[in-house]
């Protein structure tokens, strides 16, 4: 329990650090983006909204940095991430709320499937070391070196397009209203197959490789020899003794790699114009929509922290040593 508490404290600290970084980044922007915006939307902006933008961008020369920082926190506490420039005057939080579920569904599910599948294949590759499975390793290395977004491009070029079952862009059929009915869901699933496969193909090989190496390392442990000496069935030695132990470092590796993976998978959304956070980030970057960029970064970071915490809990349940001693 103590161990878990430490982790929670660490994630809170990291969240604080990310929020603080987020506070300072806009202060690097040269010029006065708020003035430009106000000029663009003359008269349409309430004075409240203008004040809030000034806090976000730190252009108010009268306020000290410290008081800006406190105000920034206050705004965050109310869930106020500012107003989006591009879809003015929609609040950033609203845009994020509508795109987050798409990302969670696509990236979350495919990442978990990829981890489970890769780990499973890695167990086989590691246990049957020296067999034909080893011949697949160079292929998987190559696949894992392909940028996610390029694989997406190739997938679109080869599989999608007019007349194909796979749509090349979007999260659902244009014209459908998002709702939990069979029309909408089947359309959403149809649209997510290709992006999901893209993520799966380029991420699964990393897991195969790391699990294989862990299996090879664990296979030389004394307790594996003991398991063989006990005359246990091969399956039990491979799974309950070797794989069960090799899984532990792979799970902590999963937690550490989450930040990398999420970054890469967001690009797949861009290629497929998938209505998730990655695509929104792309649009925000193109339009220099700073509040939206910042809001998305914050939400992505916090999602990754939560996922890390979940991975920590999983590790805790898998390893009796940390469970008891902390």
């Amino acid at each position: 329990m103590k161990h878990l508490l430490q982790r929670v404290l660490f994630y809170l600290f990291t969240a604080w650090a990310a929020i603080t970084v987020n506070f300072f980044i806009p202060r690097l922007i040269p010029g006065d983006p708020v003035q430009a915006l106000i000029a663009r939307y003359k008269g349409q902006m309430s004075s409240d909204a203008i004040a809030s933008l000034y806090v976000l961008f730190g252009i108010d020369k009268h306020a000290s940095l410290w008081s800006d920082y406190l105000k920034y926190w206050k705004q965050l506490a109310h869930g106020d991430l500012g107003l989006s420039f591009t879809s003015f005057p929609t609040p950033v939080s609203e845009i994020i709320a509508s795109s987050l579920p798409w990302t969670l569904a696509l990236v979350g599910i495919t990442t978990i499937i990829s981890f489970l599948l890769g780990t499973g294949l890695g167990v086989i590759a590691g246990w049957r070391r020296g067999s034909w499975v080893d011949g697949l390793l160079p292929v998987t290395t190559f696949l894992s070196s392909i940028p996610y977004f390029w694989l997406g491009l190739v997938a679109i070029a080869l599989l999608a397009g007019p007349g194909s079952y796979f749509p090349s862009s979007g999260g659902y059929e244009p014209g459908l209203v998002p709702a939990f009915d069979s029309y909408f869901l089947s359309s959403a699933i149809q649209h997510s197959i290709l992006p999901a496969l893209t993520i799966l193909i380029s991420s699964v090989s990393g897991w195969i490789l790391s699990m294989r190496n862990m299996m090879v390392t664990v296979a030389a442990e004394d307790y594996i020899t003991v398991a063989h000496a006990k005359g246990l069935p091969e399956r039990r030695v491979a799974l309950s003794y070797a794989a069960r132990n090799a899984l532990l470092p792979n799970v902590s590796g999963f937690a550490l790699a989450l930040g990398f993976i999420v970054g890469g998978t967001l690009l797949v959304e861009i290629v497929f114009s998938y209505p998730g956070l990655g695509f929104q980030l792309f649009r925000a970057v193109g339009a220099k929509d700073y509040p939206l960029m910042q809001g998305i970064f914050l939400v992505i970071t916090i999602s990754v922290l939560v996922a890390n915490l979940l991975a920590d809990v999983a590790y805790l349940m898998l390893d009796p040593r940390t469970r008891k001693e902390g």
Partner: protein
Amino acid sequence: MTIPTSSIDQVIPGQGAMAQPEIAPGRARRRRFRFFANAKSSIGLALLGIYVLFAVIGPWVAPYDPSARSSELVQPPSSAHWLGTTHLGQDVLSQLLVGTRGVMVVGLTAGVVATVLSVLIGVTAGYLGGPWDDGLSALSNVFLVIPALPLIIILTSTINNAGDSVVALVIGLTSWAWGARVLRAQTLSLRRREYIEAARATGETTWRIIGFEIMPNLTAIIASGFIGTVIFAVMSEITLAFIGISSSGTWNWGEILFWAQSEQGLAQGAWWWFVPAGLAIAILGTALSLVNFGIDEFVSPRLRNAGKTRVKTASGQTVRMRVGFTPVLARPPSGGAAGGDPDGGDTGGDTIVAEAAR
């Protein structure tokens, strides 16, 4: 983005049972030779050499000015344009060749920046321990869990007109944490070794011990961290160019892909426009990964493949060598005593360079 596949980091921290790199100072030279003899790392280094070569000579051997327009729009490969042309009639091959330098320079610069930072932070944390360790470890863990790519995207798009050097710097400054973590763990375990303790007992200065006793034994890990960062940096800068952030004009491969996508290269079936750049990235990534596998196997001998794994048993079968079922070999005809009989191995297999005779 690529998942860091190096197993070194997973092998070292705290898992008491895992292989520890045992590089005795005196033996280092012979082992270094073995690294170059490794097939994976030599193939990787050879490929890498080709990339470096084109990074140097690319702009000179490029047949056209990569930005020069012509009237041949979106033409498939021909003898005039080996890799076809873009929507403005630019030569794709020239763009690819000219772009190599930018990709390599940014990748290597970011790698150097990140490696220097990771060595400074990781080794300091591991060697000094105490509050230094706590503070620096917390710092690197923070950088590790914050998703680096979105941060890089936001930073570079905030800084107006980020050129190659700014991009390299931003990537370097945000991606050192992985290496620092691995180096810290390894320094910590080195610090407890007897010869380091002995050096401390004889009153050598801290910097001398770090410089002459610890650093030489971290070479492999630093190299592996460097290559891992270069992979990440190359992918990141190409991504930045692909989503249209970094400055134009250098013909970064990501930029080729950016135009290919935004000008409907896909819809027109202009495969020559986006396939070569993607392959160039993938092969560069593979080459770097191969070098890293070589380093991995060099550091943890258990991963090494000792060549022949299939043996012929006394019963006439051919089996794979594996843990738990030692094969009984067929005796050469000259052997005197009766050989043992069969072995029915069918699965598994492992070739570990065990310490001969315990």
